[in-house]
């Protein structure tokens, strides 16, 4: 079994924790040992949020050591850059095109919101897959499935059979949205598979 460490990052309220739950659930169904770790509390008021997911035959540390993540899934561009040091030199970063400028960037001196986070991540990652998940989700008719599109885009990096993903989705999303979520997952996977890194 191939061991995988995935870091999912974003901004409080974006649904990072739900996405990492879905991934963990799918990995568990696929027969892996799984550990997942994040911190609740202060971070949820619009702060930066990260969730570590480790998938293997047997997992010890729930935290990924720096430079050891096989994949980074970022729900927001600047967050991808904030956490890129967890990624292996040849790791893959799947980055949502969304930009959320924190209120502090408006009144505090500092580095400011990064110019082009995707390009900066590209300089430090093996492969970068930028994805405009909102547009993909809107095309499917429901902007709320943005996160499922992103998980689909991530799925190409992992050894989890599509069936297990689908069952994990069925078990977690509200009844009545199962079909659109499964469709969003496949659309994300397809978009990522067709992406050619420049």
């Amino acid at each position, binding site marked *: 079994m191939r061991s995988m460490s995935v870091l999912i990052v974003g*901004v*409080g309220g974006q649904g990072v924790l739900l996405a990492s*739950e879905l991934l*963990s*659930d799918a990995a*568990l169904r696929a027969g892996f*040992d*799984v*550990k*997942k*770790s*994040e*911190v*609740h*509390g*202060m*971070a*949820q*008021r*619009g*702060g*930066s949020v990260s969730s570590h997911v480790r998938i293997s035959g047997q*997992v*010890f*540390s*729930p*935290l*990924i*050591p*720096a*430079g*050891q993540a096989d994949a980074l899934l970022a729900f927001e561009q*600047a*967050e991808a*850059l*904030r956490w*890129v*040091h967890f*990624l292996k*030199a040849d790791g893959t970063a799947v980055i949502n095109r969304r930009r959320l*400028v*924190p*209120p*502090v*960037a*408006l*009144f*505090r001196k*500092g*580095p*400011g*919101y*990064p110019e082009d986070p995707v390009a*900066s991540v590209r300089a*430090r990652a093996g492969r970068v897959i930028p994805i405009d998940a909102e547009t993909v989700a809107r095309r499917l008719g429901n902007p709320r499935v943005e996160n499922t599109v992103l998980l689909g885009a991530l799925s190409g990096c992992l050894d989890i059979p599509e069936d297990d993903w689908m069952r994990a989705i069925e078990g977690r999303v509200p009844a009545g949205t199962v079909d659109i979520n499964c469709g969003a997952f496949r659309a994300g996977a397809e978009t990522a598979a067709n992406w050619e890194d420049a």
Partner: protein
Amino acid sequence: MKVLLSGNEAVARGCHESGLHVATAYPGTPSTEILEEIASRYAEIDSEWCPNEKVAFEVAMGASFAGARALTAMKHVGLNVAADPFMSVSLIGAPGGLVVVSADDPGMHSSQNEQDNRLYARFAGYPCLEPSDSQESKDFVGHSLEISAAFDVPVMLRMTTRVCHAQSVVRLGERREHPVRGFQPDPRKYVVLPNHARVQHVWAAERLERLAAFSESSPLNREEPGRRDVGVITAGISYQYVRETLPEASIFKLGISHPLPIERIRRFAASVGRLFVVEELEPFIEEQILAAGIPCEGKKWWPRLGEFSPDIVAAGFVRAGVLERGPEPPAPVEVQPRPPVFCPGCPHRGLFVALKKFKALVATDIGCYTLSVYPPIAVGDICVEMGASIGTAVGVAKARGSGKGIVATIGDSTFLHSGMTGLLNAVHDGAGITVVLLDNSITAMTGGQHQPGTGKTLSGAAARPVELAKICAALGVERIRVIDPYDLDQTGKALGEALESGELSVLITNRPCTLYPPEIRKSILRPPFRVKPDACIGCHACFKVGCPAIGESEKRTEKGLSQSRIDRTLCTGCSVCSQVCPVQAIVREPEGGAK
């Protein structure tokens, strides 16, 4: 069946399987989900939120006196509040079984300090069990209850943030029932008069010796043989990091970190070359081992402050010369920080925006409103612990000789937790401070728990809601006013009068939290605001209210200044930003325009 559970969910499951009867708590990160999970899944357990940790402890303690299996859960600093019964009950015992979950927060993710509560276990003579993952979190609840009932001793189940919130695989079991034995009157045991307590103290000391013998033989302390030149003693989450970074070492994993199985440790030490102790925070295990005359190395290589990670544990082994230095891990990139902020529409925003003008000295308290200390609002001079604001403000007033210009800000839940006695003292003392009771009708910071003011219990049942204004009046406060924090003018006037009066005044804000309980959103959402591009002069006054819904637009004024924009999907229509705009460029969208 195998499922993925967080440590907190696993503790709740452990309560179910081991036949627990009573569970109590006051919410506090990282312990909160234990009681929430019990209430939502295991209805056979009588669970409740209490106004504070001391009361929660006492309720669980009483249940165990009457022969029930009981558990109380709290964050590390919560145990300071409950320390009085915690210490004294050690001399009485816990015949039904009593588990005290202490959820410590190394790294202070959501806390004001990072005290290591294992020291409390030793101080009071409790056994201390330390789970290292969710399976152990579940199993150790059962072990703790068995030990508790067998030795007539309360047990500390010591968790940390990483164990509480990390999820791992757990094998589930069935519930095993235990009869409630009932209260057996015995004043020499249950009434701690000095002449009784002196006898009980001797008994407790002897009990600790029996517990040490138990620890020697318990399988919760286990050896994992490996390389003979390196032996590592570890417990809790550190065990996982050691297994990850030095998998070939000989490991002595402690499930019981107090009292230590010192003779087994002595034999383990003799069987390995160098002996290391890897533990987060205090050298709790290390010092006991050194005191027993067994040489070991611990805090020499690993930090005493902050949370551990696999990187930190590995770096210690590298420094100690037992692990080869790997490739340097990549350095983090400096990115604009993203600190937490008040939610859009948060009722605290208007109050602090209005308060900022007065340049008052503000003693604040523990809750979402502590975020006011961050820019752009940047109001708040002092914050120490739950309920401290009023007492501290009174002290500052004494030193200054007047309460004028001194404010205490405190939330509803914190006031009911431990602010009421501070206010009673202020009345009795004749202090002339201003107290702002930020009543958002929920315990927000920890995720929206009910409290005696909300009219609902943990299980969602109706309860008689207490009224804060009536409590203040009953405590003897004469100047009490309810204010609308969305109305900056009215709030400012009320603050001005109170601050000038030099008399004890209580102002109570009346808008609910916009995030919790989730049902609240429907009732508070009003049509959102927007910025009129032809009117915005680019002064950025509205940025200063620090609302996540407000940002910079692409548009520029004639002078080239960026204009503001409002994200209509985030805006709750609270109107605070529109009141600070000097040119009325922020207007409400027409009714029906809201999403």
